Protein backbone atom coordinates (compact mmCIF):
# COMPACT_ATOMS: atom_id res chain seq x y z
CA UNK A 1 0.00 0.00 0.00
CA UNK A 2 2.61 2.51 1.12
CA UNK A 3 4.89 1.18 -1.60
CA UNK A 4 2.40 1.86 -4.38
CA UNK A 5 1.82 5.37 -2.98
CA UNK A 6 5.54 6.07 -3.15
CA UNK A 7 5.78 4.71 -6.70
CA UNK A 8 2.84 6.83 -7.70
CA UNK A 9 4.51 9.98 -6.34
CA UNK A 10 7.80 9.03 -8.01
CA UNK A 11 5.94 8.69 -11.30
CA UNK A 12 4.36 12.10 -10.91
CA UNK A 13 7.69 13.64 -10.00
CA UNK A 14 9.26 12.06 -13.08
CA UNK A 15 6.62 13.50 -15.38
CA UNK A 16 6.99 16.90 -13.70
CA UNK A 17 10.75 16.85 -14.27
CA UNK A 18 10.25 15.82 -17.88
CA UNK A 19 7.87 18.72 -18.50
CA UNK A 20 10.23 21.10 -16.72
CA UNK A 21 13.09 19.90 -18.88
CA UNK A 22 11.05 20.54 -22.02
CA UNK A 23 9.35 23.78 -21.11
CA UNK A 24 11.37 25.62 -18.43
CA UNK A 25 13.82 27.30 -20.87
CA UNK A 26 10.92 28.40 -23.03
CA UNK A 27 8.95 29.73 -20.08
CA UNK A 28 11.96 31.67 -18.79
CA UNK A 29 12.53 33.14 -22.21
CA UNK A 30 8.87 34.14 -22.48
CA UNK A 31 9.00 35.74 -19.03
CA UNK A 32 12.17 37.65 -19.87
CA UNK A 33 10.49 39.10 -22.94
CA UNK A 34 8.28 40.96 -20.45
CA UNK A 35 11.12 41.97 -18.10
CA UNK A 36 12.41 45.53 -18.16
CA UNK A 37 16.07 44.68 -17.72
CA UNK A 38 17.79 43.62 -20.95
CA UNK A 39 20.33 41.66 -18.87
CA UNK A 40 17.91 39.29 -17.13
CA UNK A 41 18.19 41.26 -13.88
CA UNK A 42 15.73 40.49 -11.14
CA UNK A 43 13.43 41.53 -9.56
CA UNK A 44 11.07 41.09 -12.43
CA UNK A 45 9.58 44.34 -13.68
CA UNK A 46 6.72 44.04 -16.16
CA UNK A 47 7.07 45.80 -19.51
CA UNK A 48 5.89 45.41 -23.09
CA UNK A 49 8.65 47.70 -24.40
CA UNK A 50 10.42 44.88 -26.19
CA UNK A 51 7.31 44.04 -28.15
CA UNK A 52 6.94 47.69 -29.02
CA UNK A 53 10.52 48.01 -30.18
CA UNK A 54 10.20 44.74 -32.08
CA UNK A 55 7.57 46.56 -34.10
CA UNK A 56 10.25 49.11 -35.05
CA UNK A 57 12.83 46.49 -36.00
CA UNK A 58 12.20 46.34 -39.76
CA UNK A 59 14.95 43.84 -40.39
CA UNK A 60 13.57 41.33 -37.91
CA UNK A 61 10.01 41.79 -39.19
CA UNK A 62 11.10 41.40 -42.80
CA UNK A 63 12.98 38.21 -41.90
CA UNK A 64 9.92 36.88 -40.04
CA UNK A 65 7.71 37.44 -43.08
CA UNK A 66 10.33 35.81 -45.30
CA UNK A 67 10.37 32.80 -43.01
CA UNK A 68 6.57 32.49 -42.93
CA UNK A 69 6.30 32.92 -46.68
CA UNK A 70 9.00 30.39 -47.43
CA UNK A 71 7.62 27.90 -44.90
CA UNK A 72 4.09 28.16 -46.30
CA UNK A 73 5.20 27.79 -49.92
CA UNK A 74 7.55 24.94 -48.97
CA UNK A 75 4.69 23.21 -47.14
CA UNK A 76 2.33 23.50 -50.09
CA UNK A 77 4.84 22.40 -52.74
CA UNK A 78 6.39 19.55 -50.79
CA UNK A 79 3.06 18.24 -49.44
CA UNK A 80 1.50 18.15 -52.91
CA UNK A 81 4.58 16.68 -54.62
CA UNK A 82 5.34 14.32 -51.75
CA UNK A 83 1.78 12.97 -51.50
CA UNK A 84 1.69 12.43 -55.25
CA UNK A 85 5.00 10.59 -55.10
CA UNK A 86 3.76 8.42 -52.22
CA UNK A 87 0.63 7.48 -54.18
CA UNK A 88 2.71 6.60 -57.22
CA UNK A 89 5.06 4.46 -55.12
CA UNK A 90 2.02 2.78 -53.53
CA UNK A 91 0.09 2.07 -56.71
CA UNK A 92 2.59 1.23 -59.37
CA UNK A 93 5.31 -1.33 -59.83
CA UNK A 94 8.17 -0.12 -61.98
CA UNK A 95 11.83 -0.77 -62.54
CA UNK A 96 14.11 0.69 -59.90
CA UNK A 97 11.24 1.41 -57.48
CA UNK A 98 13.05 -0.16 -54.52
CA UNK A 99 16.21 1.80 -55.34
CA UNK A 100 14.24 5.02 -55.62
CA UNK A 101 12.59 4.41 -52.24
CA UNK A 102 15.97 3.69 -50.65
CA UNK A 103 17.30 6.96 -52.09
CA UNK A 104 14.67 8.90 -50.11
CA UNK A 105 16.25 8.20 -46.74
CA UNK A 106 19.87 9.46 -47.01
CA UNK A 107 18.83 13.15 -47.34
CA UNK A 108 17.24 12.84 -43.88
CA UNK A 109 20.45 11.46 -42.41
CA UNK A 110 23.00 13.64 -44.23
CA UNK A 111 24.07 16.55 -41.99
CA UNK A 112 22.42 19.80 -43.07
CA UNK A 113 25.82 21.47 -43.06
CA UNK A 114 26.91 19.20 -45.89
CA UNK A 115 23.59 19.49 -47.73
CA UNK A 116 23.83 23.27 -47.38
CA UNK A 117 27.35 23.41 -48.78
CA UNK A 118 26.36 21.17 -51.68
CA UNK A 119 23.31 23.31 -52.45
CA UNK A 120 25.35 26.52 -52.34
CA UNK A 121 27.83 25.13 -54.86
CA UNK A 122 25.04 23.72 -57.00
CA UNK A 123 22.92 26.89 -57.05
CA UNK A 124 25.97 28.94 -57.98
CA UNK A 125 26.80 26.43 -60.69
CA UNK A 126 23.39 26.71 -62.34
CA UNK A 127 23.14 30.47 -61.90
CA UNK A 128 20.46 30.76 -59.23
CA UNK A 129 23.01 31.89 -56.66
CA UNK A 130 21.92 32.87 -53.14
CA UNK A 131 18.68 34.50 -52.03
CA UNK A 132 15.09 33.68 -51.19
CA UNK A 133 14.51 31.53 -54.29
CA UNK A 134 17.54 29.41 -53.45
CA UNK A 135 16.34 29.08 -49.85
CA UNK A 136 12.86 28.03 -51.01
CA UNK A 137 14.23 25.40 -53.41
CA UNK A 138 16.55 24.12 -50.69
CA UNK A 139 13.74 23.85 -48.16
CA UNK A 140 11.46 21.98 -50.57
CA UNK A 141 14.26 19.49 -51.23
CA UNK A 142 14.81 19.02 -47.49
CA UNK A 143 11.11 18.64 -46.67
CA UNK A 144 10.10 16.27 -49.49
CA UNK A 145 11.52 13.05 -48.01
CA UNK A 146 9.74 13.71 -44.70
CA UNK A 147 6.39 14.10 -46.44
CA UNK A 148 6.90 10.97 -48.54
CA UNK A 149 7.90 8.89 -45.52
CA UNK A 150 4.94 10.04 -43.42
CA UNK A 151 2.32 9.75 -46.17
CA UNK A 152 3.67 6.35 -47.26
CA UNK A 153 3.42 5.08 -43.70
CA UNK A 154 -0.23 6.11 -43.63
CA UNK A 155 -0.82 4.46 -47.02
CA UNK A 156 0.42 1.18 -45.60
CA UNK A 157 -2.75 1.07 -43.49
CA UNK A 158 -4.97 1.64 -46.54
CA UNK A 159 -6.90 -1.40 -47.81
CA UNK A 160 -6.29 -1.69 -51.57
CA UNK A 161 -9.74 -3.30 -52.03
CA UNK A 162 -11.24 0.14 -51.31
CA UNK A 163 -9.72 1.49 -54.53
CA UNK A 164 -10.84 -1.64 -56.36
CA UNK A 165 -14.36 -1.29 -54.97
CA UNK A 166 -14.49 2.34 -56.10
CA UNK A 167 -13.29 1.41 -59.58
CA UNK A 168 -15.82 -1.41 -59.85
CA UNK A 169 -18.50 1.22 -59.19
CA UNK A 170 -17.34 3.19 -62.21
CA UNK A 171 -15.02 5.74 -60.60
CA UNK A 172 -12.07 6.90 -62.70
CA UNK A 173 -8.57 7.26 -61.23
CA UNK A 174 -9.11 10.86 -60.21
CA UNK A 175 -12.45 10.14 -58.50
CA UNK A 176 -10.94 7.16 -56.70
CA UNK A 177 -8.07 9.28 -55.40
CA UNK A 178 -10.15 12.26 -54.43
CA UNK A 179 -13.10 10.47 -52.81
CA UNK A 180 -11.60 7.32 -51.33
CA UNK A 181 -7.82 7.41 -51.02
CA UNK A 182 -7.24 11.04 -50.03
CA UNK A 183 -9.78 11.09 -47.19
CA UNK A 184 -8.05 8.05 -45.73
CA UNK A 185 -4.50 9.39 -45.97
CA UNK A 186 -5.44 12.95 -44.96
CA UNK A 187 -4.04 12.65 -41.40
CA UNK A 188 -0.76 11.54 -42.99
CA UNK A 189 -0.82 14.42 -45.45
CA UNK A 190 -1.48 16.91 -42.63
CA UNK A 191 1.28 15.40 -40.51
CA UNK A 192 3.62 15.49 -43.52
CA UNK A 193 2.69 19.12 -44.09
CA UNK A 194 3.47 19.96 -40.45
CA UNK A 195 6.83 18.29 -40.79
CA UNK A 196 7.52 20.24 -43.96
CA UNK A 197 6.54 23.49 -42.25
CA UNK A 198 8.75 22.70 -39.26
CA UNK A 199 11.73 21.70 -41.41
CA UNK A 200 11.47 24.99 -43.29
CA UNK A 201 10.55 27.33 -40.45
CA UNK A 202 13.22 25.92 -38.09
CA UNK A 203 15.83 25.72 -40.78
CA UNK A 204 19.02 27.54 -39.91
CA UNK A 205 22.00 25.78 -41.47
CA UNK A 206 20.86 25.55 -45.07
CA UNK A 207 19.22 28.98 -44.92
CA UNK A 208 22.42 30.48 -43.54
CA UNK A 209 24.39 29.15 -46.48
CA UNK A 210 21.87 30.33 -49.06
CA UNK A 211 20.89 33.75 -47.70
CA UNK A 212 22.28 37.16 -48.53
CA UNK A 213 22.27 40.08 -46.05
CA UNK A 214 19.09 41.65 -47.44
CA UNK A 215 17.32 38.36 -48.13
CA UNK A 216 17.28 36.16 -45.12
CA UNK A 217 15.02 34.16 -42.80
CA UNK A 218 14.18 34.63 -39.15
CA UNK A 219 16.56 32.03 -37.64
CA UNK A 220 19.48 33.49 -39.62
CA UNK A 221 18.47 37.02 -38.66
CA UNK A 222 18.23 36.06 -34.97
CA UNK A 223 21.68 34.52 -35.16
CA UNK A 224 23.07 37.66 -36.77
CA UNK A 225 21.36 39.83 -34.14
CA UNK A 226 22.77 37.78 -31.26
CA UNK A 227 26.25 38.10 -32.72
CA UNK A 228 25.86 41.87 -32.80
CA UNK A 229 24.59 41.97 -29.24
CA UNK A 230 21.64 40.31 -27.63
CA UNK A 231 18.39 42.22 -27.14
CA UNK A 232 15.18 40.99 -25.50
CA UNK A 233 13.44 41.75 -28.79
CA UNK A 234 14.64 38.29 -29.76
CA UNK A 235 12.80 36.91 -26.73
CA UNK A 236 9.72 38.78 -27.82
CA UNK A 237 9.69 37.50 -31.39
CA UNK A 238 10.47 33.98 -30.17
CA UNK A 239 7.58 34.09 -27.72
CA UNK A 240 5.15 35.16 -30.44
CA UNK A 241 6.33 32.35 -32.67
CA UNK A 242 6.00 29.77 -29.90
CA UNK A 243 2.47 30.84 -29.06
CA UNK A 244 1.38 30.79 -32.70
CA UNK A 245 2.99 27.45 -33.53
CA UNK A 246 1.71 25.74 -30.39
CA UNK A 247 -1.79 26.96 -31.16
CA UNK A 248 -1.45 25.57 -34.70
CA UNK A 249 -0.27 22.21 -33.40
CA UNK A 250 -3.06 21.92 -30.86
CA UNK A 251 -5.65 22.82 -33.48
CA UNK A 252 -4.31 20.20 -35.83
CA UNK A 253 -4.25 17.57 -33.12
CA UNK A 254 -7.83 18.49 -32.27
CA UNK A 255 -9.14 17.97 -35.80
CA UNK A 256 -7.07 14.98 -36.88
CA UNK A 257 -6.61 11.94 -34.73
CA UNK A 258 -3.15 10.77 -35.64
CA UNK A 259 -2.47 7.10 -35.85
CA UNK A 260 -5.77 6.04 -34.31
CA UNK A 261 -9.25 5.45 -35.75
CA UNK A 262 -9.46 2.90 -38.49
Amino acid at each position, binding site marked *: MAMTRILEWLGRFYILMLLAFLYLPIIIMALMSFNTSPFYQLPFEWTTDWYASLWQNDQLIAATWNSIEIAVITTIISTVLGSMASLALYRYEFRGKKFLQALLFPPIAIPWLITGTAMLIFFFGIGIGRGLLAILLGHVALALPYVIVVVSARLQTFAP*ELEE*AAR*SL*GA*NQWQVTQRVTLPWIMPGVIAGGLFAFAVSFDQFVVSYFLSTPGQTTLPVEIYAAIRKGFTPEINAVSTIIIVVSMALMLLTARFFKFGGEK
Partner: protein
Amino acid sequence: MAGVQVANVSRSFGAHRALDNVSIDFADGGFYALLGPSGSGKTTLLRQIAGFDFPDAGRIAIGGEGVERVPVEKRRIGMVFQNYALFPNMSVADNIAFGLSVRGEPKATIATEVQRALDLVQLGKLGARRPHQLSGGQRQRVALARAIVTKPRVLLLDEPLGALDKALRVDMQIELKRIQREIGITTIFVTHDQEEALTMSDRIGILRDGRLVQEGPPEEIYDRPQSEFAATFLGDANIFRGHVTGNGIRLPDGTTIAAASGSSLTAGAKANCAVRPERIQISTGTARPDSGNANTLKGQVSKRIFAGNNSTYFVECDWQTLKVIVQNTGAERLAEGEPVMLSWSPESTVLIAAS
Protein backbone atom coordinates in the same frame (compact mmCIF):
# COMPACT_ATOMS: atom_id res chain seq x y z
CA MET B 1 -28.57 -7.65 -67.68
CA ALA B 2 -26.36 -9.87 -69.74
CA GLY B 3 -24.70 -13.22 -69.99
CA VAL B 4 -20.95 -13.62 -69.74
CA GLN B 5 -18.83 -15.69 -72.06
CA VAL B 6 -15.32 -16.71 -71.09
CA ALA B 7 -13.47 -18.40 -73.95
CA ASN B 8 -10.03 -20.01 -73.75
CA VAL B 9 -8.81 -17.60 -71.10
CA SER B 10 -5.27 -18.10 -69.79
CA ARG B 11 -3.35 -16.02 -67.30
CA SER B 12 0.12 -16.57 -65.84
CA PHE B 13 1.94 -14.80 -63.05
CA GLY B 14 5.60 -15.42 -63.73
CA ALA B 15 6.01 -19.18 -64.02
CA HIS B 16 2.70 -19.85 -62.26
CA ARG B 17 -0.18 -20.62 -64.59
CA ALA B 18 -3.13 -19.29 -62.64
CA LEU B 19 -5.67 -19.90 -65.41
CA ASP B 20 -5.16 -22.47 -68.14
CA ASN B 21 -7.45 -22.26 -71.15
CA VAL B 22 -10.70 -21.83 -69.22
CA SER B 23 -14.00 -21.56 -71.10
CA ILE B 24 -17.36 -21.08 -69.40
CA ASP B 25 -20.67 -19.73 -70.61
CA PHE B 26 -22.54 -17.89 -67.87
CA ALA B 27 -26.19 -17.72 -68.84
CA ASP B 28 -28.14 -14.46 -68.60
CA GLY B 29 -29.87 -14.21 -65.23
CA GLY B 30 -28.25 -17.35 -63.84
CA PHE B 31 -26.61 -17.91 -60.50
CA TYR B 32 -23.25 -19.49 -61.09
CA ALA B 33 -20.79 -20.74 -58.46
CA LEU B 34 -17.07 -21.02 -59.11
CA LEU B 35 -15.90 -23.65 -56.67
CA GLY B 36 -12.40 -24.78 -55.91
CA PRO B 37 -9.73 -25.02 -53.25
CA SER B 38 -7.50 -22.00 -52.60
CA GLY B 39 -5.04 -21.50 -55.45
CA SER B 40 -7.40 -23.10 -57.96
CA GLY B 41 -7.73 -19.89 -59.95
CA LYS B 42 -11.34 -19.10 -59.12
CA THR B 43 -10.59 -15.62 -57.79
CA THR B 44 -8.20 -14.95 -60.68
CA LEU B 45 -11.01 -15.84 -63.09
CA LEU B 46 -13.41 -13.52 -61.26
CA ARG B 47 -10.85 -10.69 -61.46
CA GLN B 48 -10.55 -11.22 -65.23
CA ILE B 49 -14.32 -10.99 -65.59
CA ALA B 50 -14.38 -7.89 -63.35
CA GLY B 51 -11.54 -6.26 -65.29
CA PHE B 52 -9.04 -5.78 -62.45
CA ASP B 53 -6.64 -7.91 -64.43
CA PHE B 54 -6.42 -8.79 -68.11
CA PRO B 55 -5.95 -12.29 -69.55
CA ASP B 56 -2.80 -13.21 -71.47
CA ALA B 57 -4.94 -15.01 -74.02
CA GLY B 58 -8.61 -15.70 -74.66
CA ARG B 59 -11.78 -13.71 -74.89
CA ILE B 60 -14.26 -12.39 -72.34
CA ALA B 61 -17.62 -11.02 -73.43
CA ILE B 62 -20.34 -9.39 -71.36
CA GLY B 63 -23.70 -9.23 -73.15
CA GLY B 64 -21.97 -10.21 -76.38
CA GLU B 65 -19.53 -7.30 -76.22
CA GLY B 66 -15.83 -8.22 -76.04
CA VAL B 67 -14.39 -6.66 -72.87
CA GLU B 68 -11.07 -8.42 -72.29
CA ARG B 69 -9.16 -5.13 -72.64
CA VAL B 70 -11.79 -2.86 -71.06
CA PRO B 71 -10.81 -1.60 -67.58
CA VAL B 72 -13.07 -2.38 -64.65
CA GLU B 73 -14.55 1.12 -64.33
CA LYS B 74 -15.98 0.87 -67.87
CA ARG B 75 -17.38 -2.67 -67.60
CA ARG B 76 -20.58 -1.84 -65.69
CA ILE B 77 -20.25 -4.69 -63.23
CA GLY B 78 -21.12 -4.87 -59.56
CA MET B 79 -18.77 -6.54 -57.14
CA VAL B 80 -18.97 -7.62 -53.52
CA PHE B 81 -15.61 -8.16 -51.85
CA GLN B 82 -14.64 -10.74 -49.28
CA ASN B 83 -14.14 -8.16 -46.54
CA TYR B 84 -16.92 -5.92 -47.96
CA ALA B 85 -14.53 -3.00 -48.70
CA LEU B 86 -16.98 -0.37 -47.49
CA PHE B 87 -15.60 3.17 -47.58
CA PRO B 88 -14.86 3.96 -43.91
CA ASN B 89 -15.07 7.73 -44.39
CA MET B 90 -18.63 7.62 -45.73
CA SER B 91 -22.03 6.85 -44.24
CA VAL B 92 -23.96 3.79 -45.36
CA ALA B 93 -26.08 5.92 -47.69
CA ASP B 94 -23.00 7.62 -49.18
CA ASN B 95 -21.38 4.23 -49.71
CA ILE B 96 -24.40 3.06 -51.67
CA ALA B 97 -24.67 6.39 -53.51
CA PHE B 98 -21.02 6.29 -54.62
CA GLY B 99 -21.53 4.54 -57.96
CA LEU B 100 -24.43 6.81 -58.95
CA SER B 101 -22.60 9.89 -57.73
CA VAL B 102 -19.39 9.32 -59.74
CA ARG B 103 -21.62 8.84 -62.75
CA GLY B 104 -23.06 12.31 -62.12
CA GLU B 105 -26.69 11.31 -61.53
CA PRO B 106 -28.92 14.09 -60.15
CA LYS B 107 -29.16 14.24 -56.36
CA ALA B 108 -32.88 13.46 -56.24
CA THR B 109 -32.46 10.32 -58.35
CA ILE B 110 -29.57 9.19 -56.14
CA ALA B 111 -31.62 9.65 -52.96
CA THR B 112 -34.53 7.61 -54.35
CA GLU B 113 -32.33 4.83 -55.69
CA VAL B 114 -30.31 4.60 -52.47
CA GLN B 115 -33.46 4.30 -50.38
CA ARG B 116 -34.82 1.63 -52.72
CA ALA B 117 -31.56 -0.33 -52.45
CA LEU B 118 -31.57 0.02 -48.65
CA ASP B 119 -35.13 -1.30 -48.55
CA LEU B 120 -34.23 -4.19 -50.85
CA VAL B 121 -31.54 -5.37 -48.44
CA GLN B 122 -33.81 -4.59 -45.45
CA LEU B 123 -31.63 -1.86 -43.97
CA GLY B 124 -34.16 0.90 -44.57
CA LYS B 125 -33.32 3.03 -41.54
CA LEU B 126 -29.56 2.62 -41.26
CA GLY B 127 -28.52 5.02 -44.03
CA ALA B 128 -26.90 7.52 -41.67
CA ARG B 129 -24.70 4.98 -39.87
CA ARG B 130 -21.01 4.53 -40.49
CA PRO B 131 -19.72 1.13 -41.63
CA HIS B 132 -17.90 0.53 -38.33
CA GLN B 133 -21.20 0.83 -36.46
CA LEU B 134 -22.70 -2.13 -38.32
CA SER B 135 -22.60 -5.87 -37.67
CA GLY B 136 -20.95 -8.23 -40.15
CA GLY B 137 -24.26 -9.23 -41.70
CA GLN B 138 -25.35 -5.61 -42.07
CA ARG B 139 -22.05 -4.66 -43.74
CA GLN B 140 -22.61 -7.53 -46.11
CA ARG B 141 -26.01 -6.13 -47.04
CA VAL B 142 -24.58 -2.64 -47.55
CA ALA B 143 -21.87 -4.06 -49.83
CA LEU B 144 -24.55 -5.85 -51.82
CA ALA B 145 -26.78 -2.78 -52.03
CA ARG B 146 -23.80 -0.69 -53.19
CA ALA B 147 -22.98 -3.23 -55.89
CA ILE B 148 -26.49 -3.50 -57.36
CA VAL B 149 -27.76 0.08 -57.07
CA THR B 150 -25.92 1.04 -60.28
CA LYS B 151 -27.87 -1.65 -62.18
CA PRO B 152 -24.76 -3.51 -63.34
CA ARG B 153 -24.82 -6.09 -66.11
CA VAL B 154 -23.34 -8.78 -63.87
CA LEU B 155 -22.91 -9.22 -60.14
CA LEU B 156 -19.59 -10.69 -59.00
CA LEU B 157 -19.22 -12.03 -55.48
CA ASP B 158 -15.82 -12.96 -54.07
CA GLU B 159 -16.42 -15.32 -51.12
CA PRO B 160 -18.89 -12.79 -49.75
CA LEU B 161 -20.09 -14.93 -46.85
CA GLY B 162 -16.69 -16.18 -45.74
CA ALA B 163 -16.37 -13.76 -42.84
CA LEU B 164 -19.78 -14.54 -41.32
CA ASP B 165 -20.54 -17.14 -38.68
CA LYS B 166 -22.48 -20.22 -39.67
CA ALA B 167 -26.06 -19.25 -38.68
CA LEU B 168 -25.74 -15.81 -40.25
CA ARG B 169 -24.22 -17.36 -43.35
CA VAL B 170 -27.25 -19.56 -43.92
CA ASP B 171 -29.54 -16.52 -43.49
CA MET B 172 -27.47 -14.53 -45.95
CA GLN B 173 -27.48 -17.39 -48.47
CA ILE B 174 -31.28 -17.31 -48.54
CA GLU B 175 -31.31 -13.51 -48.60
CA LEU B 176 -28.76 -13.28 -51.41
CA LYS B 177 -30.70 -15.78 -53.47
CA ARG B 178 -33.95 -13.85 -52.89
CA ILE B 179 -32.40 -10.56 -54.00
CA GLN B 180 -30.77 -12.17 -57.01
CA ARG B 181 -34.14 -13.64 -58.11
CA GLU B 182 -35.89 -10.36 -57.49
CA ILE B 183 -33.63 -8.33 -59.77
CA GLY B 184 -32.79 -11.23 -62.08
CA ILE B 185 -29.13 -10.32 -62.40
CA THR B 186 -26.48 -12.68 -63.81
CA THR B 187 -24.47 -13.62 -60.74
CA ILE B 188 -21.04 -15.21 -60.47
CA PHE B 189 -20.13 -16.37 -57.02
CA VAL B 190 -16.67 -17.50 -55.93
CA THR B 191 -16.58 -19.89 -52.99
CA HIS B 192 -14.60 -22.74 -51.52
CA ASP B 193 -17.65 -23.91 -49.54
CA GLN B 194 -19.24 -26.82 -51.43
CA GLU B 195 -22.46 -26.65 -49.46
CA GLU B 196 -22.87 -22.98 -50.35
CA ALA B 197 -22.27 -23.80 -54.02
CA LEU B 198 -24.80 -26.66 -53.96
CA THR B 199 -27.59 -24.81 -52.21
CA MET B 200 -27.34 -21.47 -54.00
CA SER B 201 -26.40 -21.94 -57.61
CA ASP B 202 -28.07 -23.00 -60.85
CA ARG B 203 -24.73 -24.12 -62.19
CA ILE B 204 -21.36 -24.88 -60.68
CA GLY B 205 -17.91 -24.77 -62.22
CA ILE B 206 -15.23 -26.68 -60.36
CA LEU B 207 -11.70 -25.36 -60.79
CA ARG B 208 -8.42 -26.96 -59.88
CA ASP B 209 -4.89 -25.74 -60.63
CA GLY B 210 -6.20 -23.12 -63.05
CA ARG B 211 -8.32 -25.55 -65.05
CA LEU B 212 -12.04 -26.11 -65.28
CA VAL B 213 -12.54 -29.67 -63.99
CA GLN B 214 -16.29 -29.95 -64.52
CA GLU B 215 -19.21 -27.65 -65.11
CA GLY B 216 -22.96 -28.13 -64.90
CA PRO B 217 -26.02 -28.01 -62.65
CA PRO B 218 -25.31 -29.02 -59.03
CA GLU B 219 -27.39 -32.23 -59.32
CA GLU B 220 -25.50 -33.31 -62.41
CA ILE B 221 -22.07 -32.74 -60.88
CA TYR B 222 -23.10 -34.43 -57.66
CA ASP B 223 -24.71 -37.44 -59.34
CA ARG B 224 -22.28 -37.84 -62.23
CA PRO B 225 -18.86 -36.49 -61.30
CA GLN B 226 -16.36 -36.96 -64.11
CA SER B 227 -13.25 -37.15 -61.95
CA GLU B 228 -12.20 -38.28 -58.53
CA PHE B 229 -11.50 -34.65 -57.67
CA ALA B 230 -15.02 -33.54 -58.62
CA ALA B 231 -16.51 -36.50 -56.73
CA THR B 232 -14.63 -35.81 -53.50
CA PHE B 233 -14.51 -32.02 -53.62
CA LEU B 234 -18.25 -31.62 -54.12
CA GLY B 235 -19.71 -33.86 -51.45
CA ASP B 236 -18.28 -37.05 -50.05
CA ALA B 237 -17.56 -40.22 -52.01
CA ASN B 238 -16.22 -43.73 -51.57
CA ILE B 239 -13.67 -44.43 -54.28
CA PHE B 240 -12.91 -47.95 -55.54
CA ARG B 241 -9.81 -48.50 -57.67
CA GLY B 242 -9.55 -51.27 -60.24
CA HIS B 243 -9.69 -52.07 -63.94
CA VAL B 244 -12.56 -51.65 -66.36
CA THR B 245 -14.72 -54.69 -66.99
CA GLY B 246 -18.13 -54.42 -68.65
CA ASN B 247 -19.90 -51.38 -67.24
CA GLY B 248 -17.92 -51.41 -64.00
CA ILE B 249 -14.55 -52.30 -62.59
CA ARG B 250 -12.86 -55.36 -61.16
CA LEU B 251 -11.12 -54.82 -57.83
CA PRO B 252 -7.72 -56.46 -57.26
CA ASP B 253 -9.37 -59.32 -55.30
CA GLY B 254 -11.70 -60.14 -58.17
CA THR B 255 -14.85 -58.50 -56.83
CA THR B 256 -16.68 -56.59 -59.53
CA ILE B 257 -18.42 -53.31 -58.93
CA ALA B 258 -21.15 -52.61 -61.44
CA ALA B 259 -21.73 -49.04 -62.57
CA ALA B 260 -24.42 -47.40 -64.69
CA SER B 261 -24.02 -48.12 -68.37
CA GLY B 262 -22.77 -45.60 -70.87
CA SER B 263 -19.06 -45.57 -70.13
CA SER B 264 -16.62 -44.99 -72.94
CA LEU B 265 -13.61 -46.43 -71.14
CA THR B 266 -11.87 -49.40 -72.76
CA ALA B 267 -11.93 -52.74 -70.96
CA GLY B 268 -8.82 -53.44 -68.89
CA ALA B 269 -7.91 -49.78 -68.42
CA LYS B 270 -7.30 -48.47 -64.92
CA ALA B 271 -10.47 -46.86 -63.59
CA ASN B 272 -12.24 -45.86 -60.41
CA CYS B 273 -15.80 -46.10 -59.19
CA ALA B 274 -17.35 -43.48 -56.92
CA VAL B 275 -20.33 -44.08 -54.63
CA ARG B 276 -21.95 -41.49 -52.39
CA PRO B 277 -22.11 -42.58 -48.71
CA GLU B 278 -25.87 -42.03 -48.49
CA ARG B 279 -26.56 -44.30 -51.48
CA ILE B 280 -25.22 -47.37 -49.70
CA GLN B 281 -27.67 -49.49 -47.79
CA ILE B 282 -26.48 -51.25 -44.70
CA SER B 283 -27.96 -54.40 -43.13
CA THR B 284 -26.93 -56.57 -40.24
CA GLY B 285 -25.64 -60.10 -40.63
CA THR B 286 -23.75 -61.73 -43.46
CA ALA B 287 -26.68 -62.77 -45.62
CA ARG B 288 -27.12 -61.15 -49.01
CA PRO B 289 -29.70 -58.41 -48.51
CA ASP B 290 -32.97 -58.59 -50.41
CA SER B 291 -32.64 -55.02 -51.67
CA GLY B 292 -31.99 -56.34 -55.17
CA ASN B 293 -28.89 -54.20 -55.48
CA ALA B 294 -26.24 -55.68 -57.73
CA ASN B 295 -23.29 -54.43 -55.70
CA THR B 296 -22.69 -56.04 -52.32
CA LEU B 297 -19.77 -56.06 -49.94
CA LYS B 298 -19.48 -57.51 -46.49
CA GLY B 299 -17.72 -55.76 -43.72
CA GLN B 300 -17.63 -54.82 -40.08
CA VAL B 301 -18.64 -51.55 -38.43
CA SER B 302 -15.48 -49.91 -37.13
CA LYS B 303 -16.88 -46.58 -36.00
CA ARG B 304 -20.17 -44.76 -35.75
CA ILE B 305 -20.55 -40.99 -35.64
CA PHE B 306 -23.97 -39.83 -34.53
CA ALA B 307 -24.97 -36.44 -35.93
CA GLY B 308 -28.61 -36.12 -34.90
CA ASN B 309 -30.50 -36.45 -38.16
CA ASN B 310 -28.11 -39.07 -39.47
CA SER B 311 -25.27 -41.38 -38.51
CA THR B 312 -22.05 -41.98 -40.36
CA TYR B 313 -20.75 -45.55 -40.21
CA PHE B 314 -17.20 -46.45 -41.10
CA VAL B 315 -17.32 -50.00 -42.39
CA GLU B 316 -14.14 -52.03 -42.69
CA CYS B 317 -14.24 -54.18 -45.85
CA ASP B 318 -11.54 -56.40 -47.28
CA TRP B 319 -9.87 -53.68 -49.26
CA GLN B 320 -10.81 -50.43 -47.73
CA THR B 321 -12.92 -48.60 -45.22
CA LEU B 322 -16.20 -47.33 -46.61
CA LYS B 323 -18.23 -44.45 -45.36
CA VAL B 324 -21.99 -44.98 -45.11
CA ILE B 325 -24.52 -42.34 -44.08
CA VAL B 326 -27.83 -43.57 -42.70
CA GLN B 327 -30.82 -41.32 -41.98
CA ASN B 328 -31.98 -41.49 -38.40
CA THR B 329 -35.39 -43.22 -38.62
CA GLY B 330 -35.47 -44.28 -35.00
CA ALA B 331 -34.72 -47.86 -36.00
CA GLU B 332 -32.12 -49.91 -34.21
CA ARG B 333 -28.60 -48.57 -34.57
CA LEU B 334 -25.63 -50.70 -35.44
CA ALA B 335 -22.95 -51.28 -32.83
CA GLU B 336 -19.25 -50.98 -33.45
CA GLY B 337 -17.73 -54.35 -34.37
CA GLU B 338 -21.00 -55.68 -35.78
CA PRO B 339 -20.74 -57.63 -39.08
CA VAL B 340 -22.79 -55.97 -41.83
CA MET B 341 -23.63 -56.27 -45.51
CA LEU B 342 -23.42 -53.22 -47.75
CA SER B 343 -25.34 -52.96 -50.99
CA TRP B 344 -25.97 -50.32 -53.61
CA SER B 345 -27.26 -50.11 -57.14
CA PRO B 346 -25.19 -49.70 -60.33
CA GLU B 347 -27.16 -46.49 -60.98
CA SER B 348 -25.62 -45.03 -57.81
CA THR B 349 -22.15 -45.94 -59.01
CA VAL B 350 -20.16 -43.63 -61.27
CA LEU B 351 -17.31 -44.95 -63.37
CA ILE B 352 -14.52 -42.42 -63.74
CA ALA B 353 -11.15 -42.58 -65.46
CA ALA B 354 -8.21 -43.06 -63.10
CA SER B 355 -6.37 -39.82 -62.48
